[in-house]
């Protein structure tokens, strides 16, 4: 029943929930302004940016302590905070990118709802990063998904966009249907839906292993769909190619980040012995199912298939789609380790991946603004037509391959060291082989840009100053974090604490 204790806890929860509340307020204010000023071009984008920045200020200022809020439904901890900041940065960059997107504003299209839905999607992902209850996970995944289904088909009269959106919604609905079935089985096994209660039920009673495996696989299928892990990746190339470039970039970074956050939290809080947590290095699995092997298999499949299929791609969006599948595989390697070092490496890799992947998509977008499509043939001679943009693209490509002195190297280095410290040496070998394969298709882009040069040399592409500023914002950190990475390491190491309940 409602009493004083509940009310005081609720008040504390609402205080800690401020960044999310600001997002919802932004969502509603933007909606009202969109109704009043129907024809403004950038007003809603400006309102969204203001709201996101405010939310970010409160997010950064929040204390680093851990707490269970809203009756244990959400876990407020540094781990969730890291992912929230990452998602927020991505969102701000995406909104800025969208302002320069030609595809989006073509034919005087209204874009108010576009920015509104991006804010709504951010709200869903924030919740996913802190969700500590399977029903909240399901609700947050759906909040994120429903916004992204619509955003993928935002340019609705373009056939390939509407097609992308149909594929995304049908397969997405099916995968979340599987997930809720798995959740119902977990509920039947443990009698509870909160991660820490599942954990204590698993310690205290004898759980049937096979049923738990089926339920866990169904839930991982739902999350795996969002992080496009093989074999749940089949939608990725089509949706990434059909959706507007800004949304493709957003899906490839932010929704993956949210998916990884919930995957790590779910595995760690539910399936690892929390009573033995005094020693941070060792996580002990409870139950008979070895989840490490399950994730290791997913990881190998994901990176191998992503890299091999990427070799044949001729469309830049499709190529980057497969490349992002491969990167999800590398990040899953960090999850396999299942120690604090592993989680730290995941955080580092994700931050680096955010910068370099957004950068690559930004270049694809501004080239597509000029040439009208993303065919790799259009990149012939770009190195001479747009020297600065191409130079930035080279930085991003080197970083995506994982070569020094770029940030990508630091990410790869962190993940591989973590894997080598565990007993999964073979996994590290597969990862290195995959990185070598990936070199080929990244070099292919480079070759098209600089070495193949036909047609006319005379034409020089001009870009707006805003796009240059955005490029610099993304390219400079890619280089800086490759050389001076201590702050990133420190931040990741301090963010690794996952709140485990009381």
């Amino acid at each position, binding site marked *: *029943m*409602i009493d004083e204790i*509940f009310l005081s806890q*609720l008040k504390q*929860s609402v205080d800690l929930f401020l960044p999310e509340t600001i997002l*919802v307020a932004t*969502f509603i204010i933007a*909606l009202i302004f969109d109704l009043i000023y129907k024809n403004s071009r950038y007003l809603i984008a400006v309102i969204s940016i203001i709201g996101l920045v405010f939310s970010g200020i409160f997010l950064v200022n929040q204390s680093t302590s851990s707490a269970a809020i*809203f*009756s*244990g*439904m*959400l876990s407020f901890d540094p781990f969730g905070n890291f992912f929230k900041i990452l998602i927020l940065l991505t969102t701000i960059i995406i909104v800025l990118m969208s302002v320069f997107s030609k595809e989006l504003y073509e*034919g*005087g299209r209204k874009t108010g*709802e576009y920015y*509104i*839905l991006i804010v*709504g999607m951010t*709200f*869903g992902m924030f*919740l996913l990063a802190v969700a500590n*209850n399977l*029903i*909240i996970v399901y*609700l*947050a995944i*759906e*909040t994120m998904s*429903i*916004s992204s*289904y*619509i955003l993928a*088909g935002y340019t*609705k*009269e373009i056939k390939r966009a509407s097609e992308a*959106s149909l594929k995304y919604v049908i397969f997405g609905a099916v995968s979340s249907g599987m997930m809720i079935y798995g959740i119902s089985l977990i509920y*039947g*096994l*443990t*009698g509870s839906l909160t991660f820490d209660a599942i954990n204590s*039920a698993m310690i205290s*009673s*004898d759980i*049937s292993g*096979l*049923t738990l495996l*089926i339920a866990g696989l169904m839930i991982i299928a739902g999350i795996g769909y969002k992080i496009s892990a093989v074999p749940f990746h089949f939608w990725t190339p089509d949706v990434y190619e059909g959706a507007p470039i800004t949304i493709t970039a957003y899906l490839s970074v932010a929704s993956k980040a949210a998916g990884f956050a919930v995957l790590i939290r779910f595995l760690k809080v539910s399936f690892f012995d929390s009573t033995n947590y005094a020693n941070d290095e060792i996580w002990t699995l409870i139950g008979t199912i070895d989840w490490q092997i399950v994730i290791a298999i997913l990881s190998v499949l994901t990176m191998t298939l992503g890299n091999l299929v990427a070799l044949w791609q001729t469309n830049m969006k499709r190529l980057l789609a497969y490349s992002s599948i491969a990167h999800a595989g590398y990040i899953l390697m960090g999850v396999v380790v299942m120690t604090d070092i592993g989680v730290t490496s995941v955080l580092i890799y994700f931050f680096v991946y955010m910068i370099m992947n957004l950068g690559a998509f930004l270049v694809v977008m501004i080239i597509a603004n000029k040439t009208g499509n993303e065919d790799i043939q259009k990149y012939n001679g770009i190195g001479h037509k747009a020297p600065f943009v191409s130079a930035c693209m080279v930085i991003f490509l080197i970083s995506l391959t994982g070569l020094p002195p770029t940030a990508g190297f630091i990410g790869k280095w962190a993940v591989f060291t973590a894997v080598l410290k565990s007993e999964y040496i073979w996994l590290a070998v597969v990862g290195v082989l995959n990185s070598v394969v990936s070199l080929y298709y990244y070099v292919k882009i480079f070759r098209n840009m600089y070495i193949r040069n036909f047609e006319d040399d005379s034409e020089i592409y001009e870009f707006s100053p805003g796009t240059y500023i955005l490029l610099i914002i993304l390219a400079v950190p890619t280089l800086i974090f490759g050389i001076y990475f201590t702050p990133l390491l420190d931040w990741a190491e301090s963010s690794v604490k996952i709140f485990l309940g009381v």
Partner: protein
Amino acid sequence: MSLIDIAFYFFAILIIASAYIVVTSKNIMYSAFALLFTFFGVAGIYVLLNADFLAITQIVIYIGGILVLIIFGVMLTNRITGVDIKTGTMSKFQIWMTAILCVIAAIGLILIFTQTNWNTALSPTKASTIEDIGTLLLTDYLIGFEIASVLLLIAIIGAALIARRKTN
């Protein structure tokens, strides 16, 4: 056999038979109407399981909302209602393989589930669950309640945005 047993078997057969029609009928309108009986049967199962509020919700939202939506979808995407739409492009062999795999999966799952020791406890008998559901929704699940409201707002905006006709 008690009355409850008879009711269970009645609803179970209703659900299975109508679900079979939903997934096999060549006529999309027949499928939609069979879905009505499936939803109704599930509502009956909820009553047997002491979930009175859910049974009403099932009828109001599933039958009154989702099913009407689906039937509208069928009618709006076919200019003449009730006409056979080409529903299958898979070969007979593929469909049979899928059917066999589904049957194997069903048998496997049933075998596993009957061996599993589920979390069970003696249940108190309650006249109605409405009060408990209301309390839980506004205390522990308050945040879920709020997320659901934001989600529905997003869905309304999005559906209206995508489905409205081109203005220019």
